[in-house]
């Protein structure tokens, strides 16, 4: 029930910020995630940042997927 999209926080001014995904920018509210920092990847839902992406954890998941994919026979 939750379309939430990971975007990069590229500007912030108090509780408002600008988040970007593939060149598309939107103003977002940081009221729910006041400690988000510039450069963080953030989860945006209905115009608000509701969480941040943990890059290290993301890498762990991606590495796991790479291993699973590599174990598959090609083609």
């Amino acid at each position, binding site marked *: 029930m939750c379309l*939430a999209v990971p975007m990069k926080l590229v500007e912030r001014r108090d509780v408002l910020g600008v988040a970007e995904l593939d060149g598309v920018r939107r103003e977002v*509210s940081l009221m*729910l995630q*006041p400690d988000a920092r510039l450069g963080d990847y953030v989860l945006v839902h209905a115009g*608000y940042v509701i969480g941040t992406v*943990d890059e290290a954890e*993301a890498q762990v998941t*991606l590495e796991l997927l790479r291993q699973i*994919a590599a174990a598959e026979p090609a083609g």
Partner: protein
Amino acid sequence: MSATSAYGDPRAVAGLVARITRAAGKLPRRATLMEVCGTHTNAIAAAGLRRLLPPAVRLIAGPGCPVCVTPVGYVDRAQALARRPGTIVATFGDLLRVPSSDGSLERVRAEGADVRIVYSPRDALQAAREDPAKTVVFLGVGFETTVPTVAAALAEAEGEGIANFTVLSGHKTMPPPMRALIRDPEVKVDGYLLPGHVSVVTGSDAFRFVTDELGMPGAVIGFTPTDVLRGVEALVECLAAGTPRLVNLYSRVVRPEGNLAAQALVSRFFAPADAVWRGLGTIPGSGLALRPEYAHRDASLIEVEVPEPVEPAGCRCGEVLKGSIDPPECPLFATVCTPITPVGACMVSSEGTCAAWYRHERVATGGGR
């Protein structure tokens, strides 16, 4: 390959399907896994994941679509408010076409009511700023992911003294129906795929009750094909081993404690209340109502005449929402009830089980691979 496409990598998907098939061989009997998030319903159907799973693993959709479980009476009240002079109704697009007892918000808009689609509660707040003489009623539907955004808009309204911003709360929380479902003899669920974005707010710990109270495994997952399949794999392994565990497989955004700032804002404005779920009846403590000190923001207290709700005849949304029947078992499905002429809410919302089934599952066998 970009990160987004890596989570959808066909070879990783194939690998996960192989692992699931191997693990399913050790299951004592067929496993029924339920997801409780409309966005999961759609993601699974859009990628055709159901067709990849071995016969021993069955995926069903639970009452996870907030539009689908919004009772007819709520839409009736929203319609009545829209017809009230000097009122602007602001709503997410999801609600516009939901059938009420008599019409819909879309119809009422065509009749001249001021009904506006917004992408964010902030847009509704802005409408209130721009039109101080009118009352803005924001239709608050959605689960734990969305409630904090509405609470934040309320906080902003309080801080700035925007008196004409009100909320008609139809918000619901996810754990109560999950508990209620288990007690229902018609429902046979062996494990839960848990909503990843709800968990971003509530924390994965909020779902401990799945193992501790209900004695079954639960996996908190994201929305890409590999996320869903990793969840299925984890649940199948737990069931094969007979050890229910709660696993957080969406650790890149979900923390055990969740988003404390969001939780605090929600508690400030909302308190648990009994709520009516379309098709399921009243589930105690499953809704969120505005606290009495914010009565001035509570649109349910605005006096309007609301007709007695009329449930559509023959509609079996309730059973579909519980996962006890698949959409094709409802006699109205794809005959009288279609996405263009929806009878029940399961068909109106693009997340609804019936809509997702209608749009994604009707492929002739043999036309596939």
